[in-house]
């Protein structure tokens, strides 16, 4: 029989560090069923039969956030053998609030007071003996950063689990409340698991909706329970939820006054406070933030002498996937003497397709590394603090700024960076809109049309960036008005944790996890789609015969392009450019750089095309009028991102429905904007004429305006 230990604690309490120390590399990362909350478990180092279940970092067991709900469900339904509760010794009052709730469940509990090194350094004193006596469970001192006392705490939890040593439930509630709870317990005695009688009674007293619908109590029991709650509320002159929270904090205040001694005055500036005097300073905060972002961007994706991310990616693209890997596969396939089609499939389909995506790994690793440091240090919550005012106007959270900024380099790490946004709705809207930001790979598309059609006007790139930002803002406003996102307003009540040095273990772990995740996506979704696109590009019907084609104008992809290009007719894609534009849209799904390369192939340009494709400018210019070119460009900027980014969306959304929804939304939005631009701008330049599509465009514009300015769902 294995032993299950649940690791619980507040965010920023050092829970991740402790989990990494206890389990080492024996970790399994997944998702809690039905929600995008990360689920991590592992086995205790040296004890294969002890499973450590890492629970989400939470402040309370309220029913309002998905993290809290999965934690509750796990604790009540999965019956862990013991709970290891990690608390931050420098912030003990608020951390014990969760502890009092965990103790209600009646499981064996061990409390590990973390950051004891800091507590001592501050000259504070925590009497763990007294704390242990008051709370009725073992209390141990640890320092996860210095790896002191961690294994001992885990072993204590194992010991309690083996002996089934339950603590005494501390006397948190007084007189009238205890009276009401006793009556509620009595009336549900035969309904719930008796081990959790007290837990259910407290939750019913709080009028917890989740528990109400779970228990589905008969009417007369409910009335009886409600009567006791009302009596107690009248006696205490407060509502039940407040009474419970008050009682807990009053109890904690009482316990702490006896066992915790703090040095220093109440409002003295801590080291964190001093740092914040500068970092969140009224005048300096925004420039510092801009500086940090620029530095991060420069190191990971810039083209400076210290841009290690770019160097790595250039090396991966030019050497690793440009020479070594193709060379290796070339010699293997040649020595095996495989047939031509298989050689083409492996070299042009798989190696080129997957290689193009894996080339980004160095940049993603560097960016993840830097993001993990910012997160671990505590800077991310300051960013939210600084930026919240602007972003919440657009339905986004203060933390959404980071994904957006990162996405100007590459959408994939941008979307992955949305992980740091706790509120699910804000995170979803961020994931849905981050792809609109013009990334590095879209720059050649802009360059191509700016050069070919608009005489290299810098206005084209500027307007492209502006359209990307506008798409984010408008989408944020539109989406926030739908019931799905408006449902429960996400509270912005956030802790600004004390700054601390990053832990190398945590930073490397999280960098590795993010990097591996990307590699996994590239070798599954990207591999499959590369093969399919290669097949469509390479084969075709010539005189009714199915065969490999030399001329890409004859490929299946060209046929598909011709067959469905009418879809884009309202965007002005007509005539000879229509199918070429359609094909380029498809190949752009592998990577947006492919759009320009595809035009090179389709316009039969032989040889190496330069990045902006200036060799085919004249042909593009004669095929695309300015408005048509602009409509095409907008569509490419806003429509479905590349496969790698779709993989990232899938990762952050956690389910297929939301992933497909996001991609459909992006395509729909791109279509609508391109159509409006073409139909109206076309009227001015004479490229389009008044017709049913003008009416349709006007209707779509009216719809967008309505969606943006309507009142929206009010919860």
């Amino acid at each position, binding site marked *: 029989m294995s032993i299950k230990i649940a690791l619980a604690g507040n965010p920023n309490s050092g829970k991740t560090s402790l989990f990494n120390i206890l389990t080492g590399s024996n970790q399994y990362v997944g998702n809690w069923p039905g929600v995008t909350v990360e689920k991590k478990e592992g086995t205790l180092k040296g004890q294969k039969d002890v499973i450590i279940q890492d629970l989400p970092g939470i402040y309370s067991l309220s029913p309002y956030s998905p993290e809290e709900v999965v934690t509750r469900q796990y604790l009540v339904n999965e019956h862990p053998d013991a709970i290891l509760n990690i608390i931050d010794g420098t912030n003990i009052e*608020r951390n014990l609030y969760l502890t009092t709730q965990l103790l209600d469940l009646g499981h064996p509990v061990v409390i590990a007071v973390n950051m004891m090194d800091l507590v001592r350094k501050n000259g504070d004193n925590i009497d763990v003996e007294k704390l242990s006596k008051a709370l009725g469970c073992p209390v141990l001192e640890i320092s996860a950063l210095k790896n002191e006392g961690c294994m001992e705490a885990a072993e204590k939890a194992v010991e309690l689990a083996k002996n089934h040593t339950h603590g005494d439930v501390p006397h948190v509630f007084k007189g009238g409340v205890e009276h009401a709870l006793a009556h509620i317990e009595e009336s549900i005695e035969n309904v719930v698991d008796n081990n959790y009688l007290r837990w259910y009674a407290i939750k019913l007293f709080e009028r917890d909706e989740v528990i109400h619908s779970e228990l589905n109590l008969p009417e007369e029991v409910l009335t009886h329970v409600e009567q006791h709650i009302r009596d107690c509320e009248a006696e205490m002159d407060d509502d039940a*939820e407040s009474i419970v929270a*008050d009682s807990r904090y009053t109890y904690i205040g009482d316990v702490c006054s006896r066992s915790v001694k703090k040095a220093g005055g109440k409002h003295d500036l801590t080291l964190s406070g001093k740092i*914040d005097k500068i970092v969140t300073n009224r005048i300096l905060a925004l420039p510092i933030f801009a500086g940090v972002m620029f530095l991060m961007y420069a190191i990971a994706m810039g083209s400076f002498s210290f841009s290690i991310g770019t160097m790595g990616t250039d090396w991966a693209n030019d050497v690793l996937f440009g020479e070594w890997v193709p060379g290796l596969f070339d010699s293997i396939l040649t020595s095996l003497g495989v047939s031509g089609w298989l050689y083409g499939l492996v070299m042009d389909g798989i190696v080129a397709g997957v290689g193009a995506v894996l080339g980004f790994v160095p940049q993603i690793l560097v960016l993840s590394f830097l993001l993990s440091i910012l997160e671990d240090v505590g800077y991310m919550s300051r960013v939210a603090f600084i930026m919240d005012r602007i972003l919440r106007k657009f339905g986004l959270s203060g933390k959404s700024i980071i994904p957006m900024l990162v996405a100007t380099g590459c959408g994939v790490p941008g979307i992955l960076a949305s992980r740091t946004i706790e509120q699910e709705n804000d995170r979803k809207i961020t994931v849905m809109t981050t792809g609109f930001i013009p990334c590095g790979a879209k720059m050649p598309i802009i360059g191509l049309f700016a050069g070919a059609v608009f005489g290299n006007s810098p206005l084209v790139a500027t307007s492209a960036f502006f359209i990307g930002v506008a798409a984010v803002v408008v989408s944020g406003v539109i989406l926030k008005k739908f019931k799905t996102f408006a449902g429960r307003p996400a509270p912005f009540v956030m802790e600004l944790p004390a700054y601390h040095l990053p832990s190398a273990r945590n930073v490397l772990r999280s960098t590795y996890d993010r990097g591996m995740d990307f590699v996994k996506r590239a070798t599954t979704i990207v591999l499959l789609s590369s093969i399919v696109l290669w097949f469509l590009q390479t084969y075709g019907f010539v005189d009714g015969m199915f065969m490999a084609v030399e001329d890409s104008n004859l490929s299946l992809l060209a046929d598909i392009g011709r067959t469905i290009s009418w879809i884009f007719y309202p965007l002005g894609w007509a005539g000879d450019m229509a199918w070429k534009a359609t094909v380029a849209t498809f190949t752009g799904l592998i990577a947006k750089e492919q759009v320009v390369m595809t035009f090179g192939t389709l316009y039969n340009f032989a040889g190496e095309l330069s990045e902006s494709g200036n060799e085919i400018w004249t042909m593009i210019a004669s095929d695309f009028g300015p408005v048509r070119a602009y409509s095409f460009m907008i569509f490419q900027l806003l429509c479905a991102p590349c496969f790698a980014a779709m993989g990232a969306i899938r990762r952050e959304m956690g389910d297929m429905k939301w992933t497909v929804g996001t991609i459909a939304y992006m395509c729909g939005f791109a279509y609508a904007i391109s159509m409006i631009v073409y139909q109206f701008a076309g009227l001015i330049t004479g490229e389009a004429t008044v017709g049913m599509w003008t009416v349709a465009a006007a209707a779509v514009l009216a719809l967008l305006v309505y969606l943006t300015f309507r009142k929206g769902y009010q919860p």
Partner: protein
Amino acid sequence: MKTLKDIKVGGAATVVKLHGDGPVRRRIMDMGITKRVEVYVRKVAPLGDPMELTVRGYELTLRKADAEMIEVE
């Protein structure tokens, strides 16, 4: 009614009652803002909102719109 929103930077106040309802109110209580607790207003964000508070020995930030739900004296 005097609320936390009215307290100037550098000022402190004692919580009397929490108004409003639902998740935001519960979250505020969970974070330690309950009756009789002393709250110190540390600063306001560069763009004027949200505010940073010191409560129960740690730093907490909330929006002014939410601070308006907290009655103080």
